[in-house]
């Protein structure tokens, strides 16, 4: 039972990391550590900004 739950945890962790779903949490933590006192964006604002940043940094997809 434990190993099944563990496998599920691993898969969940991997998918969240690969998809970048943890980016907001990381941003909040990064902000509180390195820039204390700076206003923290809401998740909606943060994700919107992150998406818009991608406009300026195209990534090659290979063949």
């Amino acid at each position, binding site marked *: 039972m434990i190993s099944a739950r*563990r*496998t599920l*945890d*691993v898969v*969940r*962790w*991997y*998918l*969240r*990391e*690969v*998809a*970048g*779903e*943890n*980016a*907001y*949490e*990381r*941003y909040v*933590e*990064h902000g509180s550590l390195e820039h204390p006192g700076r206003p923290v964006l809401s*998740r*909606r604002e*943060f*994700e*919107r900004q*992150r*998406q*818009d*940043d*991608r*406009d*300026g*940094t*195209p*990534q*090659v*997809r*290979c*063949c």
Partner: protein
Amino acid sequence: MTATDVGTRRPSWRSMITWTGVAVIGALAWSVIALARGEKISAIWVVIAALASYAIAYRFYARFIVRRVLQVDNSRATPAERLDNGVDYQPTDRRILLGHHFAAIAGAGPLVGPVLAAQMGYLPGTIWIIAGVIFAGGVQDMVILFFSMRRDGKSLGQMVREEIGPVGGAAALVAVFSIMIILLAVLALVVVNALAASPWGTFSIAMTIPIALFMGFYLRTLRPGRVIETTVIGVALLLAAIVGGGWVQESSLAGIFTLSPQSLVIALVIYGFFASVLPVWMLLAPRDYLSTFMKIGAIGLLAVGVLVTGPTLQNAAVSKFADGTGPVFAGPLFPFVFITIACGALSGFHALIASGTTPKMIQKESQVQMIGYGGMLMESFVAIMALIAASILDPGLYYAMNAPAGLVGATAQTAAQAVTTLGFTISPDQLSAAAAAVQEKTLVARTGGAPTLAVGMSEILSGIFGAGTALKAVWYHFAIMFEALFILTTVDAGTRVARFMLQDTLGNIYKPMGRVSWKPGLWATSAVVVLAWGYFLWTGVNDPLGGIYQLFPLFGIANQLLAAVALALATTLIIKSGKARYAWVTLVPLAWDAAVTLTASWYKVFSNDPKLGFFAQRTTYQAAIDSGKLLAPAKTMDAMHQVVTNATVDGVLSALFAVLIIIVILDAFRIWVKALSAREPLPMMESPVVLSHIVAPAGLWPTADERMLLAGGSVAIGGPGVGGDGLSADDLPPGGSSR
């Protein structure tokens, strides 16, 4: 921990016995593949030979390069650690980064190239895919990743300019841009050939646009940041679109989705333009999620299918077409098999990715082995499976599908006859039955590799999940769909990258052009890029001689020449860092690659055989036009003129590619001589040395030494499943590493 102090310990008995075992099994599999003559062998042997060779290469050769040649230094902070800004620079868990990197390098190339190369038999392809990745492809990806990482993630073009010189840099820039255009055109041609006259496929692919738009808005407004949830919904809709395509094909709507190749080209060019000018979140990003998900899923499914069913190879080990008389592509085994396979063994395009986002996210220097070399081994394995999928088909069917329409005609009867002339047998009834089994109108002259791979995959997959015609058709269309999906993702992303390059370059001449947000500039450059690849795509679908037959070699040459640029840069940097005695690591693959591609370019430009040389072709057809004659397969004077124009353009382009690459190599050679004769080492643009505080394992599983180091840190490392320490996913620190 530095890299060198780990490897000095004597190997244990257990490891010696294990590796001897791997070597013996690998050698056995190789001898079965290479020595079997006249009897059919199981595809499992190919898989075993590949996996055993990869394991040995990864454990010994890649490790040698990492430790002795590159001398990775884990006490040195990577750009991800030094410049961590939480946006583009951030230390990322090695397993996650491997996923990102693999998704970026893998695509349709390793699936399509080996299918076409199966014309020469399965043996030449197998040898090149495996030997090529071990000695060239994996080395290139890893070494470029390493050098870019030492330079804060600089791009290939920047590194060539700074480390070799402005001449080489300019040539490399033009080469990258023009190579990209050809790449996009040929990949798009594969999609057009797979979708033409197939309402099922066209409907499913058309549906990906509304699905992506829906996902984009969902992620933007309804559930910001919930990528997995959005992707799951998207994939469900996508699978519904594949099944729905079957109904559309039977319904009165079929007519709307039955498009000629020409209409598909126009649709693709318009789509490409919008994909390039619309914001990324709307279309590009969601399609990327879908494509990545489908890519990993489909490749995994194919691997399981091959391993479970262990199909028998029907293709010859070395076919009689090794002499260059084959119908799929022109030219003899050397150099054209190496050109055609392209991505699965050595791909210059990977150097753009290895010098893109990956070097900015790597945690530890020693991880270049797992991500650069390991990622490329995975790509090579995809190519092996594609080769297997093409080689389990009956050769008669293979040639009926892959020879150009000019040769096999349009009906099952003409195709069966043409196949007999080639020396294989398939009856018109068998051909029609094969098409009916996957619910396509015809399989004749479905060139480009994608339909062939789809037939092979449907064969394999219906083998595990139980047969039944209906299911086979769904598998076929599933395979077509995912290939088209990730080719289109490459086309979207490539158009955008090419547009940025163009804007960047023009910005030097007229300032506003360089601003990505300036709308007129954005539209103009996007239009230039889509029209450029659109032109080659258009000539490809209209080419009387067959677009794939004419253009695929050009694509292969372009990709391999880009690899020559990357390997020349790598050699330069190895010599500059004072390790000239190890320069052979990249110099040997460079010499081989230059020999292969320049020979191929030579054939394409100077060969007197009108089937092979573009200018000989031009002369032959022009002479016929002058005397008012028609040459088969052209049926009209217009078609004759078209052959002349296409041959001229393609010939000029082949020559241009070769010249640009020769410039880069010569410029690099100048630096090699300078570096070897200088007393002081030449200056390099490496970033400063900063002490690293991150502790993270180098490979997939931490070694005993690494475990000790990790235990010494204050925070637990890695993800769940690493140390068996009962860590839950939620306890993980961001980035999955300790500081």
